[in-house]
């Protein structure tokens, strides 16, 4: 009977993975108790992650065919989507644990957990669909939930509210871009099914190209890809754990994975591949440069981490602009690296209550767990060997060299050099500086909240040491592309 239930669940895996956090959110609203809501949220996220990773593992690592029930027009997963959902769901689980552990003690805790869950559900829906409109819908739900998380982060203070207002404005522009883009795509191809774009593309691809660029721009804006990251600084300056983990990590991963998926369908049309390249490659370089410069100049720890992740996003854009399976696979690994490093760093910053860069001076003595998470995350950002960050860069450079294309090599080298500066600075401060008297009082707090940071740190290292399964999954997922 259990086997039958599992088989049934596997057939409806996408629906269940999306429904679990929504159901969890509904239960949280009913109870409106932050602590109870946190337990529900973690449980719902756990179910969602278990289903999504099971689907991803079966399809990508063990090579099982992707046979799931098509739930209406919306949830029809492909292999890239399965990978994306796996990453997003695990990130959402860790974010729910970390964000909820802090939120459970705050006034609007239950509502925060609800929004974190809804955000995860939105990104999962976007991952499991091959319909461009549903993808946009999922993205928008997730984005608005993220805005809500940011707004609640200040517990009545103005700064997070202003940040949320800015996100709302920027997001409105983004969604306008996306909707106009979708209209142009629908006009050019007669369909919004991503899998049918290439075959329906007429000779006159200009409206399609413009539409595609607008859609990508709209999603890039939500990911926080520079120079469209106008909301990033404001959102993370006084952010709480929920904002950092749910918006800074889960949303970023969801949006980046959405970009990879959209592009992978778009480049099927040969005449369109070059246009994608010329759109994304300069964007990637700009993102690397702007993010790196901002990270180097940042004095606020959360901003530094956010900008560092933005610089890494440039690497994803470069990977994707290659338009080849190797490029997409490299992009997927790079996104996994970003999520891992983000969860470890943001988690550690939250747990150790470090807000300014010099707050982490001498942290190793008073908060060993947070320090370990900082070290793992920063090492991955730098691209140190034996971390997943190294793996991501290696695959990108390898993919670039493979096609005699030296842009990404140069840009990623630049990103690595900048990361040596700001990532090395974090490690140096943690281990080789003395804490000031005021800082010396703070240490590892919030036992449950420290779990996601440490777990992400361990994942970053474990995947760097034994990456075979991840590489196989990324390669299999990337084969969707030509």
């Amino acid at each position, binding site marked *: 009977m259990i086997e039958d239930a599992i088989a049934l669940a596997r057939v409806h895996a996408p629906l269940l993975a999306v429904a679990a956090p929504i159901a969890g959110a509904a239960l949280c609203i009913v109870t409106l108790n932050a602590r109870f809501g946190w337990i529900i949220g973690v449980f719902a996220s756990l179910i969602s992650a278990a289903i999504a990773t099971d689907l991803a593992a079966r399809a990508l690592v063990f090579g099982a065919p992707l046979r799931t029930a098509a739930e209406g027009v919306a949830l029809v997963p492909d292999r890239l989507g399965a990978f994306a959902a796996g990453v997003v769901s695990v990130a959402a689980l860790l974010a729910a644990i970390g964000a909820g552990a802090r939120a459970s003690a705050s006034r609007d805790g239950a509502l925060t957990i609800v929004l974190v869950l809804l955000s995860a559900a939105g990104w999962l829906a976007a991952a499991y669909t091959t319909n461009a409109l549903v993808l946009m819908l999922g993205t928008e739900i997730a984005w608005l939930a993220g805005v809500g998380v940011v707004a609640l982060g200040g517990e009545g203070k103005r700064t997070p509210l202003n940040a949320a207002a800015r996100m709302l404005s920027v997001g409105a522009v983004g969604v306008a871009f996306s909707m106009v883009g979708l209209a142009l795509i629908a006009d050019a191809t007669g369909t919004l099914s991503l899998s049918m774009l290439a075959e329906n593309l007429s000779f006159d691809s200009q409206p399609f190209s413009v539409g595609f660029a607008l859609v990508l721009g709209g999603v890039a804006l939500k990911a926080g890809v520079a120079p469209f990251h106008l909301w990033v600084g404001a959102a993370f300056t006084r952010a709480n754990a929920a904002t950092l983990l749910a918006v800074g990590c889960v949303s970023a991963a969801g949006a980046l994975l959405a970009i990879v998926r959209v592009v992978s369908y778009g480049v099927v049309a040969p005449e369109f591949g070059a246009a994608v390249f010329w759109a994304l490659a300069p964007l990637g370089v700009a993102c690397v440069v702007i993010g790196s410069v901002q990270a180097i100049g940042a004095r606020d720890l959360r901003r530094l981490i956010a900008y560092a992740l933005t610089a890494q996003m440039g690497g994803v854009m470069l990977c994707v602009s290659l338009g080849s399976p190797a490029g997409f696979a490299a992009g997927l690994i790079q996104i996994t690296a970003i999520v891992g490093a983000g969860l470890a760093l943001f988690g550690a910053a939250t747990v150790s209550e470090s807000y300014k860069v010099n707050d982490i001076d001498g942290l190793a003595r008073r908060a060993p767990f947070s320090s370990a998470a900082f070290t793992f995350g920063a090492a991955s950002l730098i691209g140190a060997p034996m971390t997943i960050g190294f*793996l991501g860069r290696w695959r990108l450079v390898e993919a670039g060299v493979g096609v005699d294309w030296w842009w990404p090599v140069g840009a990623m080298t630049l990103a690595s050099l900048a990361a*040596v500066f700001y990532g090395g600075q974090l490690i140096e401060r943690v281990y080789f500086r003395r804490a000031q008297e005021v800082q010396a009082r703070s240490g590892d707090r919030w036992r449950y909240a420290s779990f996601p940071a440490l777990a992400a740190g361990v994942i970053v290292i474990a995947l760097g040491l034994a990456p075979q399964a991840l590489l196989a999954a990324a390669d299999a997922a990337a084969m969707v592309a030509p």
Partner: protein
Amino acid sequence: MTAELALLGVVLGPLAQALLTVILARPPGMRDVVFVSLSLFTAACAWRLLQAAAAGEAARIALVQPLPNVDLALAVEPFAALTAAVIAVCSVLHALHTVGLMRVTREPAPVRLMVFIALCVGAVMAVAFSANLFTLFVANQALTLAAFPLVAHRGDAESAAAGRLFLATLLAASVGLFLPAMVWTYAIVGALDFQTGGVLAGRVDALTANALLVMFVVGLATTALPPLHRWLPAAAIAPPPALTTVQALAVVPAGGIGVFKVAAFVFGPALHEAAFATRSLIAVAGVGMCGAALIALSRQDMRERLAYSCIAQSLAVLLAVLLALPVGLFAGALQLTATIFASATLSMVVGSVAAVTTRQSAGDYTGLGRVMPWSLAAFALACASMIGMPPFSGAWAKLWLITGAASAGLTWAAALVGLAAILTFAHLGPLAANALAARAPPDPFHRPDGASIALVAPVVLSAAATLWLLIAADPLAAFLAPVWTPQP
């Protein structure tokens, strides 16, 4: 003990040394016994590997495989076994000297110093026995990170700045140049394993070979090739035991080992394809040698003088291996081993003198040989080896280096080596002579009991080792031959 076990022991021994030094930090006597004993264990493992290489035993261990066809692996080959044995023997002497120095100076954080010294030795062993470029890269990064706390050990603003310069230079060069070169090689060959005769031989055009060579060599900034050499004089701020580790035992030797491996096992005959780059790099190294030796002459602080002298010796290794000839590789191996002993002796003596007499300026060394005869006699022998005076080790190395440069048709490079030797004589020769021959200073000792046996014995033994090539040069040529002779 099997060769595989010894291979593991030579890398894990120093790690265990670091761990046990922390665990058994008190009482200090126990800590010191553990520290010295485990360096002996590492030396025993290295000795076993030397025997294994002499017997032609093949040993390889793969720790993890983070990329397809690329594993983190250690392998025994003659050059690695030779350099590891030399470093391990020197490490034992240095461990003894460190223990003596800690007691004399009452170092406030001896455990931290000892732990990172041990970690550096472990990392340089991994560099020596690296089986592929990836392992070399990882081990070099680990070495840089382990050496950083040594450079910044004092904790003041000056040390912190030196530490940052050290870290930034070595990591940036490694990540910015060595890593892309490694990935490029992987894209060409599909693997990164070292191979006698060079993995790139016959697989690269001239442009690629030139670019790759420059990226590899400059990326290994531990060679102190100008303009990426400033970290070494800056690191002179480190306390004496740390300085010995950086200059003589770990960081600088790792640069020599790295370029040797790249030249012999990655390029091999492909160095001829990169003729422009080799000539250019030889010119930079040759001019750098002379420049460093000249700057050393202007430095009164002994630690800085030794740092520049060390740059000159390190660049000689680079110049030798870039000659693209077996004789060049042989000269490089000799130069590296000779430099390790001589440089270790010099920096240990400078540490002893500073600890016992508080003298750190070259001018204050006058007549010190009268009151510290053993230490300053060792100092003089090491200076002679650094200069290249027969019959000391450095002489054979320089002889082969000049012969190699002339054989390659680079008489100007041979002339630069000769000029650098003269300049080295200028900054070390009179200093050693004055120290031994001049009248004793009236108030030599800061500490009335002078240098202890733990400070004297290691430097004397280390200085005596500078004579070893006198009897070992010929057998070494046969021992190292497999490095440049591809096996059928």
